[in-house]
């Protein structure tokens, strides 16, 4: 009885274009971020002759890969108005579990990889359950706790010792190239394209936006909000573990302090990419631009031999500016109403 209830064949009358301003603001912002990236590249090219070389660009790509994969989970968490502060520690613990599986338990490479990904997913699910079942007030708390717990376990399991020398299969994603293109870069491309379609073209993906936009409205619309949140944090744990696998391959070792502070870069990338801390707004396509912006910034500062202390400062400043811009955009959207 849905559509025939009402009778009218009129066209939609346009109510003033008040909606335009907000959409324009979004578009302008996205364009601005992309332009910033290009501008940054141009500046780096001018300042360092080494920047625009194939070697260096591929280096940036493979360095960005780990951060890019971590940022997928972070993006989803932030999209639901949450956050996942545990990604760096989950990365380390999952990779350590893989090292132990391969080195101590004598499991084959594929089984070890499964241990890695399974550990990450499990830790992520625990994050989700802390939020949905234990009803901790905000994922900031639960994932902060997980950050410390996972790091503690990672240090404990091998008494803080690293594990190295992995079979080729485990190193493949992090260490190999197809032609000049790193496999990790191709993996990132596949993950982002897949995630883009998941978020825009499946009902589960759309429901993630709905939960982030208005939890209560989503619940009353029949969306299983808790399942969505559990899924989001599980994916975040899984992507952190996958990033751990890539990192382990790249350095051919796992170590308990791997991934330290990775959550910071991921948060910065996601926020620069235009996702809102208030939830419900953002695009995975822009997240990769945020990741690249930070990777280029770090790479450029390295090429120019800038003190790493300043790099740390610069990333912090970038986060503050990005969040300030976010608040500004939210105000613009509200005032247009």
């Amino acid at each position, binding site marked *: *009885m849905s559509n025939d*209830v009402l009778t009218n064949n009129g066209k939609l009358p346009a109510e*003033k274009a008040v909606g335009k301003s*907000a959409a324009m603001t979004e578009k302008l912002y996205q364009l601005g971020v992309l332009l910033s990236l290009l501008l940054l590249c141009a500046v780096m090219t001018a300042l360092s002759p080494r920047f625009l070389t194939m070697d260096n660009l591929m280096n940036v790509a493979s360095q960005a890969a780990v951060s890019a994969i971590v940022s997928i989970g972070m993006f989803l968490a932030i999209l639901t108005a949450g956050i996942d502060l545990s990604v760096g520690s989950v990365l380390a613990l999952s990779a350590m579990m893989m090292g132990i599986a391969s080195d101590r338990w004598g499991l084959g490479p594929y089984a070890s990889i499964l241990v890695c990904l399974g550990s990450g997913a499990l830790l992520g699910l625990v994050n989700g359950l802390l939020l949905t079942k234990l009803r901790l007030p905000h994922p900031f708390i639960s994932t902060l706790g997980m950050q410390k717990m996972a790091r503690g376990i990672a240090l404990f399991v091998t008494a803080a010792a690293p594990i190295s020398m992995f079979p080729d299969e485990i190193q493949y994603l992090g260490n190999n190239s197809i032609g000049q293109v790193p496999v990790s870069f191709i993996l990132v491309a596949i993950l982002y394209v897949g995630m883009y379609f998941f978020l825009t073209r499946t009902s589960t993906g759309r429901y993630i936006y709905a939960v982030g936009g208005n939890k*209560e409205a989503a*619940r009353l619309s029949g969306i299983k909000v808790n399942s969505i949140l559990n899924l989001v944090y599980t994916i975040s744990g899984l992507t952190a573990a996958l990033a751990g696998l890539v990192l382990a391959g790249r350095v051919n070792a796992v170590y308990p302090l791997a991934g330290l502070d990775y959550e910071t870069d991921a948060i910065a990338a996601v926020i620069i990419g235009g996702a809102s801390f208030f939830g419900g707004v953002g695009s995975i396509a822009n997240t990769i631009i945020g990741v690249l912006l930070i990777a280029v910034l770090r790479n450029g500062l390295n090429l120019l031999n800038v003190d790493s202390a300043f790099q740390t400062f610069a990333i912090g400043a970038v986060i503050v500016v990005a969040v300030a811009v976010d608040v500004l955009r939210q105000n613009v*959207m509200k005032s247009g109403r």
Partner: protein
Amino acid sequence: MVADGILLKVKGLTKKFPGVVALDGVDIEARAGEIHGICGENGAGKSTLIKMLTGAHTPDSGTIEFDGVTYTSLDPRRAMGVGIGCIYQELNLIPHLTVAENIFLGREMYLAESLNILDRGQMNAKAAELLADLGLAVSPTARLGTLGVGHQQMIEICRAVWSNAKLIIMDEPTSSLSEKEAHDLFRVMAQMKARGVAILFISHRLDEVRDNCDTVTVMRDGRSIESFAMKERSVADIIQLMVGRSIQNKYPKEPAPQGDVILSVRNLNRKGVLRDISFDLRAGEVLGFAGLVGAGRTETARAITGADPYDSGSIEVSGKPVKIRQPLDSINAGIAFLTENRKEQGLILIQSVAFNATIVKMHKYGKAGWLSLGRIKETARKVCAEMRLKTSGMDMLVGKLSGGNQQKVVIAKWLLSNAKIFIFDEPTRGIDVGAKVEVYKLINQLVANGAGVIIICSEMEEVMGMADRILVMHEGEITGEMTQQDATQEKIMYAASGFKQAS
């Protein structure tokens, strides 16, 4: 002071909010030394007018002439400075401070101002003087929180007096007062009047207006309809002007043929909230829930729709028992819940019209897990066109729409969910008059097509105008049931106050 004693002269005051004209050329004149009543229904524009006078909002056009000076807008500081005081429904006092401290809050007296040393002695003495002037037996050093609400309100008046207010606006001042406290208030108001203060008195209690006001202005739909001396008119005249038109036009009810029972609720209980709620709803019927705020009407709807849990009871939809544990269960049973707070619970404001319209069971707009964005947009476009939704397109953010159009998106969403039972909680709250009629017409169309509709309304007129049958609730229980023909405001009020129907 102006020669003819006119202290306040509001001329052509207009204020538009997106989609709603809140004030439309309001004219009001108030003289020094008079109590001027302002009457009007909810949404007539009274509170918007107050907000202009106290500087909380800026008018779009029109002028406010006060004490011989003409302003196009006021800000709170200036309004207070020129002598406009306002006593709000909710008191703006601090319970932990003393009476005197509250009276002088923000305008303290100092022994040495540069050193920030207060002169407590002088403040207490002055406060005692003010209190005595108003005939209040209250100690200036008593903690405010220990006083009754009525006395606390008097302290607000003392504040206004101390700030030399020439005009005091009182917004529903007696709503939370006992009869005796109200009596005291009127005595103080008379004293203020004798001193030449003008009082704007806003009240729903027309007997109070009749007994205490010198002049009355009636507002309706954002306009000032008429001003007159109270002694020349009756309460019946005020009501006539307030309502303005007959209820029949305001509520375009079209009865639909009634079919079988489609929703049957038996002995629904929730500890401390709902007690033995039982009722039936038929296809083609509009069932109204009346009662005071907090009577358990929204809670009943939330229990039936899985928004809140219930302890015991049974729910049958079209004769089949359904177990409802979460919203999805009730949606699958064909029940739609259109919540009272569209913005908080009904819509995702930062998402598009298409997204919001198709959010319920979105997976059905796709194949093998992949959504068809084209189909989503087309479906939304069609249903929105049928409802004459005013929007620049399906991508428009819902947060940018007016209240009436937002409500249409909510209705569109539930139409697309294939619901047979529609529960509207305050269907027209925050919607302007024209859009209200459109919502009523949509309700007519729903029942004409065999749906069952429940409306929860706090406006008695609305429930009497639109419902075929009315259930009245009081403190979690159903205390009355009547048909549209039998219903009177008195009967509803009687049941809403907890007196069970004799029959």
